[in-house]
């Protein structure tokens, strides 16, 4: 197929993302005949933008049917895309079977020896160099009943997917295994990863969708979701750090209910009956044992961290409006430069992605119209042949047939070219998703910094209060019992807070380090990916243009007798 050397893995579904689209062809035979370039519903994502910040929706993404690539001439692509199905046989008898329909190359860029790491499943280029692999596929959506939580008997149905993994990573016990997961589990996985891997460029999970349950059941929606999940898991599997995470392993391997905690919030904790709000930054009353300084290494979330959120918010406002310089600033100028550059890049990339979409549409239209033109001439040819009285008519019919078949050929070539173009330019919109992941990682950093700043402020605050109390107490000889006690309490709080601050600083530094490493990794991958994209795009354009040229050249030669004498 795409020249991937993956011995022992004949199943197409295991190819990397560039082969991913091809794999869709083989996986989804039911897409084969329903997918039409013209079909608008296959273009639009059924997924609405539930979480815009999480996922970049792009019309270029998954849903173009590539089934036509492997359609052979028994299904005249002309007829399937344009007007109502005419009898294909009568026309196909006039058209020679396309000799290239079974051509071994679908794309001209058979060059996959290097890179194209991107976000595919495979991180290796050649089997010998790095023999670690982790391949994931998502298949077999099934409806299931939620027996536990349904208030209405038989009311709550959901879809599960079969997640199959092939790997030789040591932390997995086994080389091949499957589990069933539902979308909610994926959300949990994604949230857990966000918590554990702050500062990393974590691929974004597919959108949650806010649609009616009726739509949820529809095959198209389920199929799109399946594709999205597969893409997501493969991206995770391709990330050098995340692929080794415990969260991912548990998700992929542990049977039964997913044993990862969802993001906690006050409501569910109350339900659990165990409301242990760690007293982060309570300020006043202190129970030292209950405060785990390491909790600051987690971002403030939901109900239990309300107080912390308020404090950090106050701090950020103070940072922005206070005029006073916050105790620690983002000093890394290099970082700030890179951030700005990323923003510019994102803007331009978004623009290119849009234009790429127009280009794809224009190519598609061209192919369609050529096909329709060819078909019209086929009909004309047939007509003239049937009605021919004069030899001139027969000659004309023969000329017309020539043009007709060539137009049909050219139409097919355009469609193939377009499928390849989408495959390559898809990289553009993929990177828009990557940029979102990068922004998330930068947010992690900002949040961590804010935590540090908040704690430092808090420390300063505590310190000044202690000083004031000490000053007041010293004026009273023998001390003021209550004041002294107060001072002790505050000192204890301060000690705890100081420890927390140290944790926060460590966390911040850690995240900074992650950012930096990830940026390096991204730069390298981006370089490879984009060059791969450009080359692939160019090679395909050239290759298909050459094919088209030869088709038309032969027609031009055969009709050269008619050439205008005085041109």
């Amino acid at each position, binding site marked *: 197929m795409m020249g991937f050397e993956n011995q022992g893995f004949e199943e197409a579904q295991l190819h990397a993302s560039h082969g991913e689209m091809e794999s869709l062809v083989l996986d989804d035979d039911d897409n084969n005949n329903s997918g039409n370039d013209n079909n608008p519903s296959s273009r639009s994502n059924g997924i609405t933008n539930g979480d815009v910040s999480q996922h970049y929706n792009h019309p270029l993404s998954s849903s173009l049917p590539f089934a036509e690539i492997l359609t052979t001439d028994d299904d005249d692509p002309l007829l399937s895309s344009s007007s109502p199905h005419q009898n294909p046989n009568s026309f196909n008898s006039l058209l020679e079977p396309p000799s290239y329909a079974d051509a071994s190359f679908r794309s001209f860029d058979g060059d996959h020896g290097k890179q194209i790491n991107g976000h595919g499943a495979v991180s290796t280029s050649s089997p010998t160099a790095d023999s670690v692999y982790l391949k994931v596929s998502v298949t077999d959506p099934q409806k299931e009943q939620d027996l536990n939580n349904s208030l209405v008997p038989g009311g709550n149905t959901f879809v599960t997917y079969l997640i199959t993994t092939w790997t030789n990573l040591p932390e997995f016990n086994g080389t091949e295994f499957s589990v069933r997961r539902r979308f909610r589990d994926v959300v949990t996985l994604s949230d857990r990863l966000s918590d554990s891997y702050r500062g990393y460029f974590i691929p974004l999970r597919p959108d949650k969708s806010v649609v009616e349950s009726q739509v949820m059941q529809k095959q198209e929606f389920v199929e799109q979701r399946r594709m999205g999940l597969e893409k997501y898991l493969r991206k995770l599997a391709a990330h050098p750090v995340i692929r080794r995470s415990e969260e991912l392993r548990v998700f992929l391997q542990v049977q039964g209910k997913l044993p990862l905690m969802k993001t906690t919030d006050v409501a569910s904790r109350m339900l659990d009956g165990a409301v242990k709000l760690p007293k982060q930054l309570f300020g006043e009353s202190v129970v030292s044992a209950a405060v785990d300084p390491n909790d600051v290494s987690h971002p403030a979330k939901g109900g239990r961290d309300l107080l912390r959120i308020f404090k950090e918010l106050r701090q950020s406002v103070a940072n922005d409006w206070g005029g006073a310089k916050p105790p620690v600033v983002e000093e890394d100028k290099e970082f700030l430069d890179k951030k700005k550059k990323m923003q510019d890049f994102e803007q331009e990339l978004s623009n290119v992605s849009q234009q790429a979409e127009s280009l794809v549409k224009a190519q598609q239209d061209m192919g369609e119209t050529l096909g329709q*033109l060819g078909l019209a001439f086929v009909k004309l040819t047939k007509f003239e042949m049937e009605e021919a009285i004069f030899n001139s008519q027969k000659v004309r019919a023969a000329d017309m047939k020539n043009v007709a078949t060539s137009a049909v050929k050219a139409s097919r070539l355009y469609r193939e070219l377009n499928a390849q173009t989408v495959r390559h330019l898809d990289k553009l919109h993929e990177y828009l998703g990557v940029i979102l992941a990068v922004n998330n990682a930068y947010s992690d950093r900002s949040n961590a910094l804010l935590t540090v700043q908040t704690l430092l402020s808090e420390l300063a605050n505590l310190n000044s209060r202690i000083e004031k109390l000490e000053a007041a107490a010293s004026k009273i000889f023998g001390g003021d019992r209550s004041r002294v006690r107060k001072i002790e309490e505050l000192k204890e709080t301060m000690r705890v807070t100081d420890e927390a601050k140290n944790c926060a600083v460590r966390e911040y530094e850690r995240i900074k380090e992650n950012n930096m490493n990830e940026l390096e990794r991204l730069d390298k991958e981006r370089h490879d990916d984009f060059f791969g994209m450009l080359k692939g795009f160019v090679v395909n354009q050239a290759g298909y243009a050459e094919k088209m040229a030869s088709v038309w050249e032969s027609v031009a030669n055969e009709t050269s007798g008619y050439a205008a004498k005085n041109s």
Partner: protein
Amino acid sequence: MQQRSLNGGGLQSPRSPSSQPPFLLVSVTDPAKMGNGVQAYISYKVITKTNLPEYQGSEKIVIRRYTDFVWLRDRLFEKYKGIFIPPLPEKSTVEKFRFSAEFIEMRRQALDTFVNRIALHHELQQSEDLRTFLQADEQTMERARSQDTGIFKKKPSDLMQIFWGVQSKVTDVVLGKEKPVEESNPEYEKFKKYIFELEDHLAEAQKHAYRLVKRHRELGQSLADFGKAIKLLGSCEGDALGTAFSELGAKSEILSIKLQREAQNLLMNFEEPLKDYVRAVQSIKATERANAFRQQCELAETIKLKEIDLNKMRIIRSEKMLDAEHEYEELKADGQEATRRFETIVRLMNEEIVRFQDQKTQDMGRAFHEFAKGQARLANAIADAWRTLLPKLDSLSVS
């Protein structure tokens, strides 16, 4: 501008008409916008070069407008029954106001083709109306135009309906008249059916050809936009990758121009000939012979009746008999004339059909050739442009 001579020789300087083969060269050139607003129209220069004795002088330049061409066509329709009169470009009411350069040029070409086809037709070229058209001054022309009334003003589509008996069939029955006499020549029927169906097929092909022109323009535009955007991305990126983006963007823009050019070529040399084919078929549909046939039949009826009358008169020895005989002989002569006329039309039409099929094979062959040539040229240009970029990309990717 096509200047075809009568014998394909292309001889110039007709100083001695008797020694040189006869020629009649016409060209329609120099469109000029005249008038303002609703009254605006385009005028064309019609240049005639000839050595034919019927023409005054060897060269003449006149100014004509679209309605003059229509007048000529209508006159020829009337005078030369049975002959397929060359078609005119459509009278457009909308685009007239916009008068785009493209529209004007396409119209000029079509008008040029129209006159030349007449000049090359062995019958039509002898037309007196043609001579008027090519030589008369503007006032004479205007007078001639305004003298036209009645059926000359009708559109070919109207003529078609009347003469092919499509519409009148219905109205006659409604009005209680007897079923009108119609030709039931199977060959002719077959031909009529062929023409009608041919028009439908051609119209569809032409429609898609026009769309194809549009697609080329759209693809060109999107390549230009894409190129621009990717160049911006390149300048933002910098380094080798940035250069790669910029180079790709530049190539895209170059190809955009080529696509626009090809769109134009397609329009002129493929779509327009197809449109011309459609028009020709429509013109054929308007070629009438049903009227002549009907006349012949009616006269035959009348003659029969007259003969019966005459015989009656012979028996009773009426004094009107001589007059009646006289009338009878006249009627018979008319009858013969009508028959002759009809048979001429049939003969002409059959010749025209042969010519038409031949001509169309040539015209279409040329159109197909231009189409294929243009597409090949475009495809090669695209392939070249991208191929030359590849080594650059390769070297940049490792730098």
